[in-house]
């Protein structure tokens, strides 16, 4: 356990292009007539199907059960008929089975006023079960099962609960809107997490430029008499990473091979605590999420609340289509997101954004030889030398690369973003990890 100055290490300052969507209130997308719901929307193995083709499902009904504690339940986002199954490739390249649900029948939740449940007397065990049953995962893209993360050994002592409102991928503003518009829900979700984890301190961390969210949170915290700190950090990518945030707030470091709970820190994003709030207070499973739609190719960028399983093409149509041809469509942020070619790919629990980027805004450049300028080394927030790792992997020196910290790479994208030689550093390192895992595993 090392305490260090909290100035961020490395990182980059990409042009964040959030201004386009930052002030756009969240609006509801039209409910799609057909949803494609993947059984793999989380880390870990795919969920086990519990309905069959031809079954009628209600809104929010369980359709896939978590196979183990790392996985999460999957629910029907709309009422209707299971008209088929299909195998699809998700944006992140994993493939899985998906249920096709044709909308019909009555909504149980949509348009109805739900009665909040008083959770104060609910036991921690019941709260964890509520989170698990409702399929809550890390909503900022990780897809990690939240009930597992929150279910700590009895002896574990958590000093810091950090609610992560950093959202520092460029273009994204859905979390920011959530904090502004659903301030109380975020705070209520935080209180539930606090009750489960019993931390000594609760901090909500944001970037300085989220001024309105900071104001709203501070005001509501004061009005409700909560003892939460709101910390506004200087803008720097990728300090929203949970280990980097733990370092910034708690002053403690932990390498990528270990969990932050080992240094007494739990980091959970605002979107995740909001999903916890809905799961506990309204017993609502994760069947919708807020997605930022942006990029210069899109006619009218937006923050949209959308049902899981909605084909991305429908979201694009929802935003008025394209004003010019996009060069690529990215699911997630531009630093860590994945491109898709098939716009019928559905929204999952991990879909934070859909970006339609034009050739001019991605600034693609020709690859040249490495000029050893060291920009990647300076940018690396975890203290690696991406250029050296890349060269080792190029030469097949897997052991050396591992010793030089290959598996500590958090794939944040800083090195590849900054490289003047346009070398695909992140891709090289990711492939290197795969190669090591394939060749007899890690030492």
């Amino acid at each position, binding site marked *: 356990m090392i305490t260090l100055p909290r100035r961020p290490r490395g990182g980059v300052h990409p042009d964040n292009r959030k201004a386009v969507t930052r002030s756009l209130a969240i609006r509801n997308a039209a409910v799609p007539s057909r949803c494609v719901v993947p059984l793999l929307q989380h880390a870990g193995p795919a969920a086990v199907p519990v309905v069959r083709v031809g079954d009628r499902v209600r809104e929010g009904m369980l359709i896939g059960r978590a196979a183990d504690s790392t996985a999460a339940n999957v629910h029907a986002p709309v009422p209707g008929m299971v008209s088929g199954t299909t195998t699809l490739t998700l944006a992140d390249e994993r493939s899985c089975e998906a249920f096709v649900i044709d909308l019909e029948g009555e909504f149980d939740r949509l348009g109805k006023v739900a009665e909040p449940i008083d959770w104060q007397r609910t036991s921690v065990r019941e709260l964890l079960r509520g989170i698990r049953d409702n399929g809550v995962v890390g909503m900022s893209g990780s897809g990690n099962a939240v009930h597992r993360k929150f279910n700590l050994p009895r002896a574990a002592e958590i000093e810091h609960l950090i609610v992560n409102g950093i959202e520092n991928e460029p273009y994204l503003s859905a979390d920011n809107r959530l904090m502004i518009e659903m301030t109380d829900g975020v705070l209520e979700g935080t209180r539930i997490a606090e009750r489960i984890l019993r931390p000594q301190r609760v901090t909500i961390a944001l970037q300085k430029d989220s001024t309105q969210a900071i104001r709203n949170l501070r005001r509501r915290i004061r009005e409700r008499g909560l003892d939460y700190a709101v910390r506004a950090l200087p803008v720097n990518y990728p300090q929203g990473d949970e280990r980097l945030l733990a370092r910034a707030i708690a002053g403690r*470091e932990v390498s990528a091979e270990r969990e932050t709970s080992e240094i007494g820190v739990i980091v959970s994003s605002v979107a995740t605590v909001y999903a916890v709030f809905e799961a506990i207070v309204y017993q609502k499973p994760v069947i919708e999420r807020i997605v930022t739609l942006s990029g210069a190719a899109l006619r009218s960028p937006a923050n949209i609340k959308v049902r899981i399983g909605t084909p991305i093409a429908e979201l694009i149509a929802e935003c008025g289509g394209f004003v010019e041809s996009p060069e690529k469509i990215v699911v997630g942020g531009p630093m860590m997101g994945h491109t898709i070619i098939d716009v019928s790919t559905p929204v999952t629990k991990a879909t934070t954004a859909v970006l339609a980027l034009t050739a001019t805004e991605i600034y693609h450049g020709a690859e040249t030889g490495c000029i050893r300028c060291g920009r990647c080394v300076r940018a690396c927030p975890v*203290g690696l030398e991406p250029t050296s790792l890349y060269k080792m992997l190029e030469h097949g020196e897997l052991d050396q690369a591992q010793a030089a910290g290959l598996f500590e790479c958090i794939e944040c994208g800083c090195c590849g973003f900054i490289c003047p030689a346009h070398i695909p550093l992140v891709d090289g390192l990711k492939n290197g990890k795969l190669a090591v895992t394939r060749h007899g595993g890690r030492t």
Partner: protein
Amino acid sequence: MSNPETQRSGRPMLVKTAAPQYHERLSTRSLMWSVTAALLPAAMWGIYVYGLRALLVVLMAVIASAITETLISGSRETLSDGSAILTGLLLGMMLPPAVPFYVVIAAAVFAIGVAKWTFGGLGRNWINPALAGRVFVHFSWTGPMTRWTMPRTLGADSIAGATPLSIVQNAVHEGQALLGGPVAILSSSGFPRSTLDSAVTEWLNLNILTHIGVHLPAGYVDPFVGNVPGAIGEGSALLLLLGTLLLFSRRTISWEIPTAYFAAFVGLSWIVGGLPYGGAAFSGDVLFQLVSGSVIMVMFYVATDPVTSPLTAAGMLVFGAGAGALTFVIRAYGGAAEGAALAVLFMNACTPLINRLTRPRRLGGRRGRTR
């Protein structure tokens, strides 16, 4: 801009790429061209004061570098990254205006053909190509490489014997050291001085320096603006410094190397630089050392070459400090009048070692080790 075709089908031609999905507005090419642009004012000044001959030397260095690059790489593609053109320009600017053309060509061929391409081209060389070319011809044709031209602004358009630095060094070696300092030595040796120098010095003293209690002797303005015999592009410290504004504002070069170089060189020049002239410690003529010779050029444009300098900020500080200290040592105690080029060459050789000793500390761990 609107494309109805893609709108109707909703299926534009898309590409699949690995993250990150967008990029900083920066490329190898943009780095090379911004250094080239930053060098141009000083190059043009050199061409102005040394005449047509200087223009021919610079052009020949650039063209010979470009041709060598194209011949060796076997395509014109590597030329477009701008690195060979930059090497040629730097090299041309580091040569004397009256140097024979075969020396220029030899320097360029050595720079690109040997220093750069025997290791595999851009990014793989351990030594700065322009520097290597210059040092190679310096030791191969020392005579022509140390014959200098008087700038037209000093009246005479003729071959001069020596640069201010070498005049001063000879004086010190011959024991005429008790003359007070380098500028005094120059004055007593009859080294010419322009009317601009005295006019600007007087103006500065009257209007600015007197208010802060400082008096500037005559003889510094000429070398600062480039009114001295010397290499084509190294004379004008003023225009070279102006070019660095572009480099720093565009973050083309890092601040660590020039800063550490400056601190080490100025510090040593000030603390012990006065001793050879019979002065006490802390009496060195820092200003003269800075504006003379190739220090400004080397500090900002050569030592900062990304390829041959260390990767980390800490490594860059070590590198810069080492180069600055060595420049001073060679100038004060070495056989050559100018030490900046050799100093950086030596530090280039140390770069792999510095890299190994200044690895970054990993998150949650100790300094990274590879073996």
